[in-house]
């Protein structure tokens, strides 16, 4: 029985050995290189070349950048995970994904603002908390979203997310049936069709919202920062990170613990064999595509709050990051997409602080080139699972 030796011993590996083993994986090496490299580079710069910052200041700054990068990476994963799954299962690289993120942002914004305006009541609030003298009170219109009630704000936010997911999901259904279905197995036509679809969707958004780019201020409960010691992190990033992490956990649970997830994982390997076993993979395609669009749209709402504005061009800037995250992680790999998303936002943040000349998209593209030169299939490709 010629089974590789490692398969015979996996059950006997302790947790410590598993953790130690993870540090030998390609993804761990890249993360360690980025984290240690950026920290050491920053310390050297602070000690040797920057009079305005000491090593201690840089350490605090580095931790803030790290936390901001991780939370933003989780938001990016929320938007990118569906796209990589669609590619892995259906072989479709949907370049209209970014437009659906923008659509989600607009729909979520609109739903939230409608609810907020419809529920507005006039209230007297204290300008100086605790001081109830009439001279210190002012009249405000408070709706469910921009409110001091965490429950009402959360409820409105959830409704906004659900509205964005449902509307974008429905549109995604028709998009898959009308535009994607005829070009399965034809990559060149897929690029043309999805790119065209993206332009059409962006124009529809502009037409429906009269070309507006509305401000989308954060409600009180996610405005500002939380501080632990001197380390601060924006509340909206924590919200994005928590939601992104929940999606990662739920997605992993679905993929690994349910029959649907099993069929998706099998379909990524061979659509034909899934059909040979009696399952209609086309239905699975539709379900995954619609879910991917719904996830992207949900991410768009949070991204709108993060940017405090909603605009159709967010589609283009996000799409580049989403594509780089997918390629760096390994096309079609959900776990790879998770690592890729975190890596990109971390590198982006550190590059902004340490080397503004290569900040933004330049740093992510440079990262992608470096990773692909080292591992052409990405840091955690499907074949390595």
């Amino acid at each position, binding site marked *: *029985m*010629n*089974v*590789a030796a*490692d*398969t015979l011993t*996996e*059950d006997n590996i302790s947790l410590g050995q598993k953790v130690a083993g993870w540090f030998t994986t390609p993804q761990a090496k890249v993360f360690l290189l980025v984290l240690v490299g950026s920290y050491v580079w920053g310390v050297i710069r602070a000690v040797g070349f920057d009079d305005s910052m000491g090593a201690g200041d840089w350490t605090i700054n580095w931790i803030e950048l790290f936390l901001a990068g991780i939370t933003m990476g989780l938001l990016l994963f929320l938007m990118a995970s569906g796209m990589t799954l669609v590619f892995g299962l259906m072989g479709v690289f949907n370049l209209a994904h970014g437009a659906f993120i923008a659509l989600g942002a607009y729909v979520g914004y609109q739903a939230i603002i409608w609810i907020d305006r419809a529920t507005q009541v006039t209230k007297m609030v204290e300008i100086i908390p605790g001081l109830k003298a009439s001279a210190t009170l002012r009249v405000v219109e408070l709706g469910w979203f921009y409110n001091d009630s965490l429950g009402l704000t959360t409820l409105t936010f959830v409704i906004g997310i659900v509205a964005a997911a449902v509307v974008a999901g429905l549109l995604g259904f028709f998009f898959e049936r009308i535009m994607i279905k005829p070009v399965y197995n034809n990559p060149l036509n897929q690029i043309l069709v999805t790119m065209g679809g993206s332009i059409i969707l962006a124009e529809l958004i502009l037409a429906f919202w009269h070309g507006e780019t509305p401000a989308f201020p954060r409600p009180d409960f996610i405005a500002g920062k939380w501080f632990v010691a001197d380390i601060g992190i924006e509340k909206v990033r924590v919200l994005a990170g928590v939601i992104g992490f929940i999606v990662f956990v739920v997605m992993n649970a679905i993929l690994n613990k349910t*029959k649907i997830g*099993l*069929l998706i*994982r*099998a379909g*990524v*390997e*061979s659509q*034909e*064999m*899934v*059909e*040979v*076993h*009696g*399952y*209609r*993979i086309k239905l699975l395609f539709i379900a995954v595509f619609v879910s991917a669009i719904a996830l992207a749209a949900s991410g768009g709402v949070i991204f709108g709050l993060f940017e405090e504005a909603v605009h159709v061009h967010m589609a283009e800037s996000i799409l580049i990051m989403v594509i780089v995250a997918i390629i760096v992680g390994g096309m079609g790999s959900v776990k790879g997409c998770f690592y890729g998303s975190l890596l990109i936002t971390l590198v982006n943040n550190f590059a902004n602080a340490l080397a503004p000349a290569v900040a933004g998209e330049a740093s992510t593209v440079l990262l992608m080139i470096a990773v692909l030169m080292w591992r052409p299939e990405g840091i955690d490709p*499907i*074949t390595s*699972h």
Partner: protein
Amino acid sequence: MTDSILKLEGVHTHIGHYHILHGVDFEVPKNQTTMLLGRNGAGKSTTLRTIMSLWTDVQGKITYDGKDIVGMSTPKIACDGIAYVPEDMGIFGQLTVKENMVIAARNGEMDTQRLEWIFNFFPALKKFWTKPAGKLSGGQKQMLAVARAIIEPRKLLLVDEPSKGLAPSIIDNMRDAFLELKKDQTMLLVEQNFNFAKAVGDTVCVMDDGKIVHSGSMQELIEDEELQGKLLGLSMDSHQ
């Protein structure tokens, strides 16, 4: 006359610009094992894929269990009781052995008794139950592919080259498993290994250039070395 579960009449298959099957006619009798033999490129694998509707540019008639299945979808054909093991085995390498079997068990939970019956044929599957199927050896992958096909009772089992690429000792195990399996399973097997074919087959069809050039009982072919030489380009002696 034995009832047939599958009957192909004048089946033509085109793949892209190529005309591969040129009017294939044969029957698979119920409760028997039919061997489909022929040289490389004769159209054997295409015939199995055509039956499963994996090639769609098909003319002619394929009657399975009284129904014409030309144009029917692959999942529907599978649900109607035909199991298929392709030449490359079609294992989901990233999934564990157990997960591969769970997918094959369409009707929900696996029948424990049937699973134990399968483990009797292929004990390696039990040993590597929770291991990734991609890490199994070639023989074990073939065992898994066949086990998936029989985890639930099927009316017809199609297997494309069950002995391909296997070590001689594993081929013997596989042959024994098929001998046991054929007791209550109708099968259509594509095979290049004549020793395997003569041990397992009841009836035989020989293909050449996309057509059936001979049909009959396996015993007849075994006894007629001249016919073997003519049809298969071999004699029993040269293929021991």
